[in-house]
């Protein structure tokens, strides 16, 4: 399968100016490469930088050194050195990211939150909402909730809205941060199915899973942070 993500010589440290300028090193020369159709689990003890790695790939954290190259519209783009508007373009088309918690926006209904990545790509609103509703219903969100802002949803419902949003646009690279953490057994199964389908569709997945059994079911190999 084709490589779609190449991380080389990645270094990252945080300097906390408000706390005496202490520096916390996180990565010192990480190298990895990931192909389409595979799912890679990021593993390691708590606080070792599993979520940080996803944030670095998405460009939310700025790498101190190294390159994070993604396959974008047929060519390689380095997230670390790309201009902000280029990173936004790459996010729109090539990298999706399901965060641990949904960022709720007041007044915006659940179906709209899910459809947004599709609308940003210029998809027709009816079509985007169709796909959004399909995913919400697959993830067991009742139809009467689709028109409501997830503000008042339970933690599990919010997380399922978040997952639906992540899978809506069928990104070539998909980053998942504990996608099953706050879900019951049935919904966990549904998410694992979505992951398997996305892989079949050619997506490359980089995921953090708390649960070892789920990790083994969803992923084909590991990047171990020790």
């Amino acid at each position: 399968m084709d490589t779609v993500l190449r991380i080389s010589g990645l270094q990252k440290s945080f300097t906390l100016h408000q706390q005496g300028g202490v520096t916390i090193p996180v990565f010192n020369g990480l190298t990895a490469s990931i192909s389409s159709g595979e799912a890679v689990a990021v593993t390691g003890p708590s606080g070792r930088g599993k979520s940080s790695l996803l944030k670095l790939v998405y460009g939310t954290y700025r790498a101190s050194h190294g390159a994070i190259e993604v396959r974008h519209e047929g060519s390689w783009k380095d997230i670390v050195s790309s201009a902000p508007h280029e990173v936004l373009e790459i996010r729109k088309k090539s990298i999706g990211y399901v965060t641990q918690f949904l960022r709720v926006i007041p007044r915006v209904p659940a179906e709209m939150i899910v459809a947004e990545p599709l609308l940003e790509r210029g998809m027709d609103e009816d079509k985007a909402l169709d796909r959004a509703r399909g995913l919400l219903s697959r993830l067991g969100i009742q139809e009467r909730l689709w028109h409501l802002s997830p503000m008042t949803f339970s933690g599990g419902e919010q997380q399922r809205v978040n997952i639906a949003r992540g899978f809506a646009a069928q990104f070539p690279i998909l980053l998942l941060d504990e996608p099953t953490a706050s879900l019951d057994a049935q919904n966990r199964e549904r998410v694992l199915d979505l992951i398997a389908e996305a892989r079949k569709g050619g997506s490359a997945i980089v995921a953090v899973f708390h649960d070892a059994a789920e990790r083994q079911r969803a992923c084909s190999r590991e990047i171990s942070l020790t």
Partner: protein
Amino acid sequence: MSPLLSAQGIGKTYGTRTGCRDISFELHAGEVLAIVGESGSGKTTLLRCLSGHIEPTVGRVSYRMRDGRVLCLTDMSEAERRLLMRTDWGFVHQDAREGLRMGVSAGANVGERLMAVGARHYGNIRAAAEDWLARVEIPGERVDDSPWAYSGGMRQRLQIARNLVTEPRLVFMDEPTGGLDVSVQARLLDLIRGLVRRLNLAAIVVTHDLAVARLLSSRMMVMQQGQVIETGLTDQVLEDPQAPYTQLLVSSVLQV
């Protein structure tokens, strides 16, 4: 595609006092840039320089016109600059009274911008005005009311309609939700987000509220004492702030 707006070395001094200095950046079509910082950091001065309301002491602002020509703001004739401000640009003031004509009806406030660009057919102007009032969620029966009879939130939505009716490509906003109740603020933010996406608007939004910046913008510029101390994608600046002042700003936000 070349940037829509580009600022090179913008500075503004008032005698010996510095408003802002040495500011350069590029803004592309459809991008929303938030300028954040505390009061007195030079945000509004910069916005006014960029939008042609005041002339910078040094530096250049250039803009890509609809026909593709890239023109420097200071090289334009007064008439060209006025036309640009009335058609391709919008400016949303914090105080809606500054951006509206309070002496005429809500409908006329919207229709007037169209007339300024040559619309003459009354029926069409009225229809466009009503359409825009509906898009900013102002009920049709309020179209003939004076803005004096509107609430603060409605006035702000009216001001937005007035600015967007000419289908500008770039909108400048100075604390667009400042001074509004939080519930009204949420509605306005949602409205602005929707319009920005549907119309592929570029916007430069000055705000001291990081939550507003997070909701509206894709990029952020942090100002302190007249200078830009940090720039980046909005999530980058908020989640991985580099400068000591930005770290202080981000860590000072109260959690609800």
